[in-house]
């Protein structure tokens, strides 16, 4: 399949593409098998009474999530979002317009949960929940990366990600789950991380890294794991342990800790920052996966929890951890206080690795040889979950400024991509939200179009040859799709990869 996938041409004038109905209806992510499903407590295959069960689950979610309830009612079909989704721009399939994607569920909501849809379905576009509709849900709710770009532009803030999450949750509950996400969640529970890297292999990898860095720099930079009493527990995406270019950022974090003299540790129990529970909209899974980090923090007795370069993980950490696990501040209940008493209240909990590094830079605690990055003209790709679902520092927009500040502190040549493609208007890489799988490569290549257009522009005008980002999924996705657009796959890398290149380690402490 991969051989037949080609990148769509750049748009000469970036106007709204014409519609190609059904263009992506055959692109379906693989369905989870019985083993994958049952491991998460979901039915192994589509249950007999799926319609009844799906509607019951939908009713339950409408009562549990105000977002879903309000968003089902509030849309006026104004079309503000209709040209904002990267998957629509890249595929031209009208069902990839955010409003049309929501309407896949809204039409069913109207039919079963509203007066108008019960009595005048044709009038309000209400539809019975047939097998065809359910299949359509599966197809198109697995073509949304939950990047929330549409939500920025909606006059009512309708967030398609909330609808997609609800749809996936309903599909899972009737035994119609997606293989990629659900298999990964299974691995987190059984092995400890998304990539299925067992503890001995992980320890081995880290030792190898220590040797590599020693050879490279002559300095004993440590990569500690399961060290009780360390000050910092680093929670990072497991891709950082062995994938390219991710690993270079892990080396960057280690060098920062080393140079600043901060004792830190990884955890073999919680060797994963990613939380695919969010992608499938399942609160139980979201919470269960997050609780591993709470357990690790309590067991290791750390004072601070720092999160590595991972977009959705940072959204979960920043926005949800306090709610789910008590990693944060301001709690009054015993459950959360147990951990919050242990954590050092002088620091933001959790802290993003960029916040930590930037704080150190501001305090002059790190020294850099910026010329080490002189071979690069750098640009920065804002990752959707960081940009639209979180913050850094204690000022609005910190999630945009802090990574850029770091880049400018460690590299001499930095340029921005076009305004309408950065900060809160950033385009998803095309592989987020549980879609980073080879069975969706066609979608991933096409979904990258708007970002590739913006990148091409700065490559042509400024000679950009390094696109920094702080997300494991962005890094993996771009490494894969850049060649389709005739770029070198090594054009993408981490912010801490640049930090790693430039940091001056000096004597060991």
């Amino acid at each position, binding site marked *: 399949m991969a051989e037949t996938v080609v990148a769509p041409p750049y748009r000469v004038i970036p106007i709204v593409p014409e519609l190609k109905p059904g263009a992506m209806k055959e692109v379906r992510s693989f369905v989870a098998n019985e083993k994958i499903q049952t491991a998460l407590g979901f039915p192994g295959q589509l249950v007999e009474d799926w319609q009844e069960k799906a509607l019951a689950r939908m009713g339950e979610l409408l009562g549990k999530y105000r977002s879903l309830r309000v968003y089902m*009612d509030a849309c006026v*079909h104004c079309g503000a979002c*209709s040209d904002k989704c990267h998957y629509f721009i890249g595929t031209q399939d*009208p069902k990839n317009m955010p409003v049309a994607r929501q309407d896949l569920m809204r039409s069913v909501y109207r039919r079963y949960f509203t007066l108008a849809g019960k009595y005048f379905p044709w009038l309000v576009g209400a539809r019975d929940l047939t097998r065809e509709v359910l299949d359509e849900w599966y197809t198109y709710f697995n073509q949304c990366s939950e990047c929330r770009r549409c939500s920025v532009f909606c006059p009512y803030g309708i*967030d398609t990600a909330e609808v997609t999450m609800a749809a996936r949750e309903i599909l899972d509950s009737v035994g119609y789950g997606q293989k990629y996400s659900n298999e990964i969640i299974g691995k987190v529970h059984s092995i400890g991380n998304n990539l299925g890297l067992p503890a001995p292999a992980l320890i081995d990898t880290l030792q190898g890294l220590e040797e590599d860095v020693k050879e490279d720099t002559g300095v004993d930079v440590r990569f500690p794991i399961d060290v009780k009493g360390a000050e910092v527990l680093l929670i990072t995406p497991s891709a950082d342990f062995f994938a390219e270019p991710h690993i270079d950022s892990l080396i960057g974090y280690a060098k920062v800790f080393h140079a600043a003299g901060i004792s830190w540790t990884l955890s073999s129990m919680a060797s994963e920052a990613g939380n695919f529970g969010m992608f499938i909209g399942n609160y139980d899974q979201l919470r269960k996966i997050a609780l591993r980090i709470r357990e690790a923090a309590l067991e290791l007795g750390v004072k601070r929890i720092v999160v590595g370069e991972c977009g959705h993980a940072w959204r979960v950490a920043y926005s949800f951890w306090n*709610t789910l696990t008590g990693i944060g501040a301001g709690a009054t*209940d015993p459950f959360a206080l147990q951990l919050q008493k242990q954590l050092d209240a002088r620091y933001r909990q959790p802290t993003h690795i960029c916040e930590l590094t930037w704080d150190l830079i501001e305090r002059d605690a790190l020294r850099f040889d910026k010329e080490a990055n002189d071979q690069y003209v750098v640009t920065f790709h804002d990752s959707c979950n960081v940009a*639209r679902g979180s913050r850094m520092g204690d000022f*609005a927009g910190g999630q945009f400024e802090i990574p850029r500040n770091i880049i400018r502190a460690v590299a001499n040549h930095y340029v921005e991509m076009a305004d309408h493609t950065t900060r809160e208007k950033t385009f998803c890489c095309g592989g987020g939200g549980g879609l980073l799988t080879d069975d969706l490569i066609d979608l991933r290549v096409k979904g990258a179009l708007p970002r590739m257009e913006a990148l091409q522009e700065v490559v042509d005008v400024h000679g950009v040859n390094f696109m920094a980002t702080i997300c494991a999924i962005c890094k993996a996705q771009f490494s894969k799709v850049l060649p389709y657009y005739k770029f070198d796959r090594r054009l993408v890398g981490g912010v801490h990869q640049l930090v790693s290149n430039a940091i001056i380690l000096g004597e060991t402490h």
Partner: protein
Amino acid sequence: MTTASMVFALLFYLAALVFAGGLLVRIAGYARTPAPLRIPTTPAPTTIRGVVFRMAREVMLFESLFKANLWIWALGILFHFGLALVVLRHLRYFTEPVWFWVAAVQPFGIYGGMAMVLGLAGLWARRLLVERIRYISTPSDHLMLVLLLGIGLSGLAMQYVAHPDVIAVKRFFLGWLHFSIQPLPDSLLLYLHLSLVLVLMIVFPFSKLLHAPGVFFSPTRNQVDDSREVRHVSAWAARMDVERPHG
């Protein structure tokens, strides 16, 4: 007293009940439904004050829509601001003496009516002519515009074509407010105008017009971005902390 007066008076009581009751039920439903996770969309304010300002900009200036699409924004502003002026102008039918600020906006009300009709016509043209907006439109989307256009045009027609006895209309509505039914002037245009308004009132709580109360309950817009500093737990999630502290 004519049959028409009686019928309209009763229908207006019914419509007012459906409108107010329906909206109350909806709003109570939104308010009662928990928002278990913090999901404000950037740029998210970090204080309640910030949220109030954000919501004010969203509701009065359509800030997000402005970022999204200037055409929809301009037509939307034209329609909504026009409608607001028209509604204010119509308050004179329900107040005696007319509040001074209602009297002050009287001369502008008619321009409001024109702006409203222009905006609606533009929005409908968009819905018909732009391929992707046509794709997402349902019959009710078109009919809603027809309904509002009908209200606006019949209203303007009473100003410019056939002027009903507005003093009598006012007497009717003042009486209606006090459950005393007064004669309504005999005017087909007026009957049409009032009938369409009745339909609008009854349809409101069951349609996409719920975007009006809905926006205030939208978690991406009404939440404070303070999840690291404050622990937010909904009731159903808090029970999990007690019952299953280890997952």
